[in-house]
């Protein structure tokens, strides 16, 4: 299986990055091909050599994280289209709203199954900025467009269900602090692809 992981950052010690790295390393150990595409903030990261990593710079400075992320996603799409065998990916797995626009476009364009892990929602983070509403809308769009939505804990699950109004049947809580969580995600990928195959047939 070929998996594309999209993450805003890839840096040792940062929570989402550690999740992405850990998942990627498990997937390659199970003989899957994994590519991580993320913005290059020049921070240090270490990862299994078998994981393809593509970090890209961004020649754009935004006045807030939302505007910056939207343009970062454009650059991310360019990197994926130009630098990877994008048509061969079986799964696009995005992480948080900061990679939702890219994942939505790429999954639509290349008709690839789309998995989204929401590590926390804007509601959980306090909904405290002027951009909170548009950020929350992106989270909603991510849950709407994704074939599978994963959360790490009950609080996020509740927020995704009640704040974002996501359908329960595509939502799954997979605790990354428990052993075997990566395998559960891989099984989810397999189920998605099986379902997709059934739809095709």
């Amino acid at each position, binding site marked *: 299986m070929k998996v594309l992981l999209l993450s805003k950052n890839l840096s040792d010690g940062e929570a989402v990055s550690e999740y992405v790295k850990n998942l990627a390393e498990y997937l390659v150990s199970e003989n899957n091909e994994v590519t991580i595409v993320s913005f290059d903030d020049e921070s240090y990261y270490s990862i299994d050599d078998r994981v393809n990593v593509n970090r890209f710079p961004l020649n754009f400075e935004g006045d807030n994280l*939302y505007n910056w992320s939207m343009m970062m996603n454009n650059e991310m799409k*360019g990197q994926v*289209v130009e630098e990877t065998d994008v048509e061969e990916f079986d799964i696009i797995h995005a992480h948080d709203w900061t990679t939702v*626009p890219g994942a939505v476009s790429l999954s639509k364009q290349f008709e690839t199954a789309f998995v989204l892990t929401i590590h926390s929602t804007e509601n959980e983070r306090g909904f405290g900025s002027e951009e909170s509403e548009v950020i929350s809308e992106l989270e909603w769009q991510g849950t709407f467009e994704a074939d599978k939505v994963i959360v790490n804990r009950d609080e996020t699950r509740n927020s995704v269900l009640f704040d974002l109004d996501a359908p329960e049947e595509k939502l799954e809580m997979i605790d990354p602090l428990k052993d075997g969580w990566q395998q559960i995600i891989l099984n989810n990928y397999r189920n998605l692809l099986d379902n997709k195959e059934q739809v095709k047939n």
Partner: protein
Amino acid sequence: MRPLFVTWEYPPYKAGGIAAHCEDLATTMADQGHEPVILTYGDEQEVEYRDGVEIHRVPASNSASNTLSWAMNLGHQMEKKAIELAKKQDFDLVHAHDWMAVPGATGIKKTLDLPMVFTVHSTQKGRDGIDSDYQRTIHNLEWYGTYEAEEVITVGREFSEEVKHNYELPKQKVNYIPNGVNLEKFDNHSENLNKDKYALDWEQIVLFVGRMYPQKGPGHLIEAMPEIIDNNPEAKFVMCGSGATEHYKQIAKSQVGEKVHFPGYVPDKELLSLMKRAEMTVAPSVYEPFGIVPLEAAACETPTVGSYTGGMKDTIIHEYTGLHTYPADPGSIAHEIERALNDPGWSDWMGQNARERVEDNFRWEQISAWTTGIYKEALK
């Protein structure tokens, strides 16, 4: 060719000149056998076919805190629509118009792997500066658009230099193509003005058309009014346009009372009638990359008194199709308006010359052909 235009405004929605520009360019391209598709904003998803042009409207979030975030959101919605459309029929390239189209157009370029052409109609630096984070982000977006585009088009000759300088662009990437005028629209319009709404029978209309913002210079014209009225009591200033209208109205009324009239927003047809009836239009802009008003006035055989700045250096020939003033100089504005008012025969002659010059140099057929020539360069 099948270009995908990305523009936040397209008629009937329009706030500035980009909507009319895109409509005239796309319609002419369609007449010339191309298949332009428009991607623009709308209150809801809809598709329309008009004058050979396919127009797709997509809504954007109502939750954005400012225009910049709104443009980002709109861009993403546009990109999703472009992906859907491209599955049915490929586009040759994406053509963005001004900074608000940059998020959408660059996203489309990246995802669909298309060449991009970017028309810069004005710059943030020229409009109102790059002092705040917000303004700098718009400037950055403009830079990003010019960086990502294979070819950049600017609407003014002098403005080309500004664009090259602002965004540090190689000169071979920047192309000057002026705006055009749809002469048919002016020729098919029969002037039917109820002049009483604007001026008394014996008064002569001096017309300002533009948004009421400092960039367009209405304040400088207002400063010039008392002197003009003292020497030419037959002058009547009609100030058309939206924006900070009340602010300028208060100042103007305190200066010349009933000799100035602010009708607010004036529908297109009424505006054409006003342009045809006016003695002259006045364009006192301090910053004007192109400035369509002198050309529209010219199409009506009306001369323009305009600042010697930006595009008006090209669109007005001093003492031949209109008169140049020093920018932001009420004394100079008063002097030139009075010269035109005092010699109506000369004004008429300048109006006729202006019309002939527009017919020879600013036709959309020509501009469309130049633009598709740039497309071919972008596709190489």
